[in-house]
């Protein structure tokens, strides 16, 4: 699972597509499998006996990259599992606030790091990178700032540099190190009708999650001009 990618999932890597097709679907009873055999050394009988891993290995050897990709994509569209495993924390939003203009209010903070007026809320730099609307819901993608993590290469297990297909193209010499930029991704979906928000809960500190909730809350309470709020203040 790509950390915390859920609401913003748009495409799938070839590895993801492969892993989302059940082994049982690699049977000659499924047309794409039967038809691809013509381009390979496999007979239908052999294919039926082979497992998913073996079939994929042979297809990988016998097909061009492009044909292999097309085959996996077709299998994925027909039989693959879409979506992601999720781990989410739900919060309620204040019931009296009008959320109709929330998107506009949020957009003022899109892009750059969240500074004023959130300084007092945030304990670390945070970016609101992306906003989109899905039906009546609003999706937010946050990133923390980049942390450099250092890894040292060792003689027994040197650090490898790989290309897009995962093939090794270089190796970091012993005692040298690499710095890898990392940052956390946190997604949230705001449900204006249900007055709820769902925030990523996987591998992020509780404190950061609460801070993000508080940031959204303060945008909501600041932008709302609902008169009910004023009445509430006057209420004894």
């Amino acid at each position, binding site marked *: 699972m790509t950390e915390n990618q859920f609401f913003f999932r748009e495409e799938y890597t070839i590895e993801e597509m492969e892993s989302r097709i059940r082994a049982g679907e690699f049977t000659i009873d499924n047309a794409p499998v039967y038809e691809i055999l013509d381009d390979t050394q496999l007979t239908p009988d052999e294919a039926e006996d082979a497992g998913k891993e073996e079939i994929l290995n042979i297809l990988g050897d016998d097909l061009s990259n492009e044909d292999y990709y097309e085959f996996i994509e077709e299998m994925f569209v027909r039989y693959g*599992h879409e979506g992601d*495993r999720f781990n989410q*924390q739900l*919060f309620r939003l204040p019931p009296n606030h009008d959320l109709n203009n929330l998107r506009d209010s949020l957009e003022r903070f899109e892009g750059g790091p969240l500074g004023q007026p959130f300084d007092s809320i945030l304990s670390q730099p945070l970016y609101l990178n992306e906003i989109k609307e899905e039906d009546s819901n609003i999706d937010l993608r946050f990133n923390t700032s980049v942390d450099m993590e250092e890894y040292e290469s060792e003689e027994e297990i040197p650090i490898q540099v790989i290309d897009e297909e995962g093939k090794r193209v270089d190796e970091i010499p012993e005692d040298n190190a690499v710095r890898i930029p990392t940052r956390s991704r946190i997604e949230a979906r705001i*449900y204006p009708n249900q007055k709820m928000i*769902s925030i990523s809960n996987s591998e992020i500190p509780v404190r950061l999650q609460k801070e993000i909730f508080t940031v959204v809350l303060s945008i909501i309470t600041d932008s709302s001009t609902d008169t009910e709020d004023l009445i509430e203040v006057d209420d004894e």
Partner: protein
Amino acid sequence: MPPNLSLNLEGMELLTIQYMLDGKNTEYGYKFKLLGLDKASFSGSRDEDMLGTSLVQTAEEAGNLRKVKFYIHHVESPEKSRAVKLNFYEDGHITSGSEITPEEFDKIVEAISATKAYSKYLSSLDDLIDDYITEINLKGEREKHRNRVSHAFEELSSNELNVSSDHVVDSYIHSMVLANIGIGLYEKSTSGSDLDYDPNMVPTDWHPHISKFFENYAQYQMEGIPEEAHNFVVSNINKLLDAVDPTEEGYSAITLLEEAQQQYDL
């Protein structure tokens, strides 16, 4: 964070969410306030209703549900359907055991939202009985009373709405909802509004423990109950049962709550 904005899922809310999503149970986790026992979990086959087993019933009476895990039938397309395990925890944190689309997640949020909207009417029948049962003197009598009331409500939803008592969760939720609507009507009767009811709708063929439950509850938990309150309550429940059509697509125990809210502004 304002503490009132955290989303907690109480025991019966968790069970109602399972009910609304048509989830097949696989695990119930309980918490207890007992000396030396904090928590216990029960896992079972998703083909069976483990809520009906005596062990889980005992836990339900002694403690509170704090997590539920169940399988839903996730249909991406006619060719792609599969069981997905969902896990719900009392602190409003939810996870899935395998891939699921954001659209399906939205349905989960809708179920939680609807459950929350009616949470006032989601006190289990057991808890409602607990509210007054200490007034019944002998322990043996109490258990007998508890069993008879439970049975009476099961019989009511079975006779009037065709809810099979084999579908334990379905039957359980229906009993809970009907009992809570009744109490809501009682509360209305004490608010001084006109107690309009059709005398012909006062049921004569219900298990006597339905009335016993309402009368006991009102006697020990409420003040200023007008004399005709009982007839007002049962006749309106009877009317409500006639008003809903359990064979209609989308019918659930929540339909009763929606209808009751509309009709009686509970």
